[in-house]
């Protein structure tokens, strides 16, 4: 199959190296064209994201010098990057692609973006015609494998960042976040991030209260929200469904009596307090009230940790699926390898049969249609009986390593290459565009 892959990723190379080898999206077609002209490269795709730059090719002999291409293409001294580059071939390249598409090779295992990025890389390579035959099959297969991993394991199902855990919890309480109000008490990086996540998931408006009012106004502008004087906090807070606290106050800002007050005003509609501050801004007592849910930074981080552990466990199951899929893909390709041989074998014998019938046809004199039919079926029967064993052997051999040997033997025994050349057919080895 002759697949070859070369690249760097977030494990093999630090960002200083990756940024030098990045291929910007607009440059990809150009790079692909150059790659296609590189001697021995039959098909190629370039995957360039912030965590990896990889070049996947199918080559004529499986041993094309891809480093030479990198050296030509990038204005860097490649020797310096040698230890960061990995090069994979055949089965290992296939496995690597399957792992990348299934997000097993990602920095955050199970993150869903990578599959989209691989699909984009595939689409642009395909549009250029750089991917057209076996590499096309390999990539299409990798999407199916990624889908299988996603449906059969829970690898991408749990949130693995504090902000996304907060969103997940909010969804467990409110169902949909559409039309929900978020209240930021105190302005910090983390609470800003959480707010951004909540808004992205449908929450509508943001109120910001901060000790320094100017900072509140700034932040409110950023989110198209409303800045509120800190003194108004308790009078306005019941308007919010989700409250994110991150002030530097040395004691709890929200105590039990505040919670009771809010619930009363809200007719017991639930409230979700996300307390990112240390020391905590929300008294844990609040969590005991019906309809109020309080999560502090430890609770959120614990959820993250346990979700990451879940993912690691799921990743093991995913690896097993990929093992099976790599094996299956290999078998399929090998079966495809023997198909041209089988076809030419059939053609070859059919030609002989026709020629022999034509040869004796004149000596037989006039025949009735019945007799014609008997001759047809007799000769065909003989040919089929003879062909049965070689075809069967070819098909079985396809699944094992001896495939190429058997193909060669059959070709030589029946002199297939020669008869093909005579008929001027395509030899089946993929031709370049």
């Amino acid at each position, binding site marked *: 199959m002759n697949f070859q892959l070369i690249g760097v990723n977030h494990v093999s190379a630090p960002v200083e190296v990756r940024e030098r080898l990045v291929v910007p999206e607009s440059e990809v077609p150009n790079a692909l064209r150059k790659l296609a002209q590189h001697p021995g490269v039959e098909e190629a795709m370039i995957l360039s994201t912030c965590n990896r730059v990889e070049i996947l090719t199918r080559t004529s002999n499986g041993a094309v010098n891809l480093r030479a291409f990198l050296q030509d293409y990038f204005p860097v001294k490649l020797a310096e990057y040698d230890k960061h580059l990995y090069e994979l071939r055949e089965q290992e390249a296939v496995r690597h692609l399957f792992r990348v598409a299934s997000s097993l090779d990602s920095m955050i295992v199970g993150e869903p973006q990578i599959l989209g990025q691989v699909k984009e890389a595939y689409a642009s390579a395909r549009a250029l015609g750089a991917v057209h035959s076996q590499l096309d099959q390999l990539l299409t297969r990798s999407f199916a494998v990624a889908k299988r991993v996603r449906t059969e394991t829970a690898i991408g199902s749990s949130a693995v960042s504090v902000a996304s855990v907060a969103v997940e919890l909010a*969804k*467990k*309480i*409110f*169902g949909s976040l559409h039309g929900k109000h978020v209240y930021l008490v105190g302005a910090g990086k983390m609470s800003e991030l959480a707010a951004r996540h909540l808004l992205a998931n449908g929450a509508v408006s943001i109120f910001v209260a901060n000790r320094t009012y100017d900072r509140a106004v700034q932040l409110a502008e950023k989110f198209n929200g409303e800045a509120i004087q800190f003194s108004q906090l308790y009078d306005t807070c019941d308007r919010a469904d989700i409250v994110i606290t991150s002030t530097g106050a040395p004691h709890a800002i929200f105590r039990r009596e505040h919670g009771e007050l809010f619930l009363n005003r809200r007719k*017991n509609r*639930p409230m979700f307090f996300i307390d990112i501050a240390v020391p905590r801004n929300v008294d844990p007592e609040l969590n005991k009230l019906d309809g109020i*849910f309080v999560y502090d930074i430890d609770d959120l981080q614990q959820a993250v940790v346990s979700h990451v552990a879940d993912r690691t466990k799921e990743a093991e199951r995913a690896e097993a699926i990929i093992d099976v899929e790599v094996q299956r893909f290999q078998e399929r390709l090998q079966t495809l390898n023997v198909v041209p041989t089988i076809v030419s074998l059939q053609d070859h014998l059919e030609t002989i049969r026709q020629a022999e019938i034509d040869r004796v046809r004149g000596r037989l004199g006039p025949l009735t249609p019945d007799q014609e039919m008997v001759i047809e079926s007799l000769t065909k029967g003989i040919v089929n009986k003879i062909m049965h064993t070689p075809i069967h052997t070819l098909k079985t051999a396809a699944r094992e390593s001896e495939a190429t040997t058997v193909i060669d033997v059959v070709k030589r025994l029946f002199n297939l290459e020669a008869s093909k050349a005579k008929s001027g057919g395509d030899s089946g080895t993929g031709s370049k565009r």
Partner: protein
Amino acid sequence: MPLLWLRIALGCYAVGLLYILVALGRASEWANRIALQAAYLGMIFEFVSLVESILPAPQITLAAEHNAEPLLAFFIMVMFMVVYLIYKTTSLGIIVFPLVFLLTFVAATGQERFLSMVPSTRKDWLIVHIALIFFGYAALILSFGASFVYLIQERALKSKRSGGLLSRLPALQVLDDISFRALAVGFPCMTLGLLAGIVVAEASYGRVQYADPKILLSILMWAVYLLLIYTRWTAGWRGRRAAYLATGAFATAIIAWAANYFSAIHGFVRS
């Protein structure tokens, strides 16, 4: 024949019950689907059984041959399916499936016949009375189921446990919606059903026997039902308090149901 259909329905429910437990135990889309299909089939067979046994009867003999339980089971299943269509959740199955199974089981395996003694002159009103009341019961049970699941989910969120079964339960708000909507649909049915009952009683006996235990309990249940809706409406009671009230209403409903065995009028007395 009706009994045969009922037993097939029972088999379907058993399969549904089994798979809903599997589906809750671990994330499994296919188990969920099997449970739903089985429940759906069971519902259809139950309906066929009901039609076959009620239609040919010269008068309403709901009590005969245990028609009451399958009818209730059928209504509960219908509401469960409606909830599934709207909210795409099967988690109420934890409550609904065992209950429906039990109701159908009682009817499908019961050998003794209960005799009906309702020589009513107002057959049409009687049908309305029974259908509406039963629908009200079904709504109440579903609301109870939703409240129950709400409690489980709330406890999980409060104790900060996650994953496993809990991650597959619907959001609190959704459960609250189901619970309230079921009540909002069920209460008018219950009210109208009771009114229809009064009409039937007046027509048959000339007066309503308020001292009858069944009637007393029914009125009590109606009052609890009303209270449940009222507290939700005005104070927004949900979660624990709503669940307790729903449990109370559910309990009175069960007693009112059981009162059939002691009531002279509803004639479920063994002959």
